């Protein structure tokens, strides 16, 4: 799933790092950037597969309008990862097809 990253962030641009977990794998990323940016620089090529045709998709607009970067963050499905800043210990899961509301952690709703 992870492979050679399309984007790189030079070490000179990084002041502080945090660790996020993507599909069980730890990734050390610069603090203060979006989840989408962190995953793109961490070698994640496709973020999810589509609801209709199960086709692979990845961020297109990076500014909150295209909704291609939807991913599960800390148990909440279909978050716009280009709008969510990374946080230490954040758990991220790629989405396969439609978000599964049954297994999703909706604890924050209760």
């Amino acid at each position, binding site marked *: 799933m992870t492979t050679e990253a399309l984007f790189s962030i030079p070490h000179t641009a990084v002041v502080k790092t945090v660790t996020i977990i993507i599909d069980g794998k730890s990734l050390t990323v610069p603090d203060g950037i979006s989840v989408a940016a962190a995953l793109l620089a961490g070698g994640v090529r496709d973020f999810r597969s589509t609801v209709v045709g199960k086709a692979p998709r*990845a961020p*297109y607009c990076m500014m909150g309008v*295209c909704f291609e970067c939807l991913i599960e963050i800390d148990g909440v499905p279909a978050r716009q990862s280009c709008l969510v800043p990374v946080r230490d210990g954040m758990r991220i899961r790629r989405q396969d097809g439609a978000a599964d509301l049954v297994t999703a952690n909706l604890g924050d709703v209760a």
Partner: protein
Amino acid sequence: MSEVVADFVVIGAGPAGMAAACEARSHGLSVVLLDEQAAIGGQIYRGVETAPSDRLEVLGKDYAVGRDLTSAFCSSGARHVGGATVWNVSTDGTVDYVTNGSSGKAVGKYVLIASGAMERPFPIRGWTLPGVMGAGAAQILLKGAGALPSGPVVLAGCGPLLYLLAWQYLRAGASIRALVDTTDRSAHLHAARYVTGALLGWRDLAKGIKLLAALRRHRVPVYSGCTDLAVEGESRVEGLSFRHGGKLVQVPASLLLLHQGVVPNTQISWSTGSAHRWNAEQLCWQPVTDVWGRLGETSLYVAGDSRAIVGAQASAVQGRLAALAIAARLGAVTDLDRRAAPLQRDFRRHTSIRPFLDSLYRPRDENRIPQDGGVLVCRCEEVTAAQIRRYVELGCQGPNQTKAFGRCGMGPCQGRFCGLTVTELIAGTRGVPPDEVGYYRIRPPIKPVTLGELTR
């Protein structure tokens, strides 16, 4: 839930929103500014406050100058609510939003919608493959994270932002495999009509010439006048094919950045039920306003690129003009016309090059209205151009009806990324102007909110 009341509520922390907030504060109005991002700056000045010096150097002076506006805003006394996703705007001035998992309400005597621009969709075969992004998206990665392409990148399309990004990449030491320019050569002739206006905006012209010279100096292969673009690859982008000078060319690519200009982000103004008209020069919808930006008889104003594309500098001026008009309505300004006159002159100066740019970088019909029936138009619900044409044959009159025919525009992006294409595709198929086919009916919530967020 939190509730705040202010004279003036601004949506969007880009040039128009920040300048409007500063202007309103200078007349003593209380101001609350909401923005979806954590930091101010919008897309054009994203990250400008915190960018390290080497990044400011790479991005250039026109970016760094944004600090003047962000620091003016920070000392203006306006209240900034960052990370605020606006999901409803009422014509009486109530704005509903969520931030940090809980909901808020900002009630303004007047509200300014300064939601800016978005990149125009580029519907060609394969544009949904991972590894294909907007050039503006890649620039956001550079501004926000300092991220550069790891390997040689292919840029395709037209418009100032595409050349600007190429120039910034070269300054940062990134490698460009090819620039595939889709500008129609005959557009140079059409654009020549507006050359007088363009000369008034000579600074912008000189900037463009400088960017192109840098590409030549770095020996970036530039293919001009390209047509028939198609992205190659099965599960990710592997290359771009196109026609250049009568020959079919293929270039390999693992990262392909597409761009053909920006269009107003009209999601909020549509959602208020306000009238919009088709802008035939900029090939997009724009809200119908009075000269100050007011939407009908509502408490809402629009300024900047979300009203029509004018660029960062003109957006800031337009934001100030809207704030002045609002201050006058509230009795805080008594000599509106005298104060507005120099701003109106600035606005004309900053927009004098616009007709020239609109004409020169008019995106080709084939890149807006897919002739290839297999091209996905609605990325969310995976509806193709051929399917939409078929809906029209079956009696579909406009974008809103395509929802009933095949869920077109009903996915998570709520039509943001297919709306323009669907409008033009249906207008073309029916042989009527875009104004006649209309747009989607956009309803709140215009961004996804959870019930949990609404209860907090």
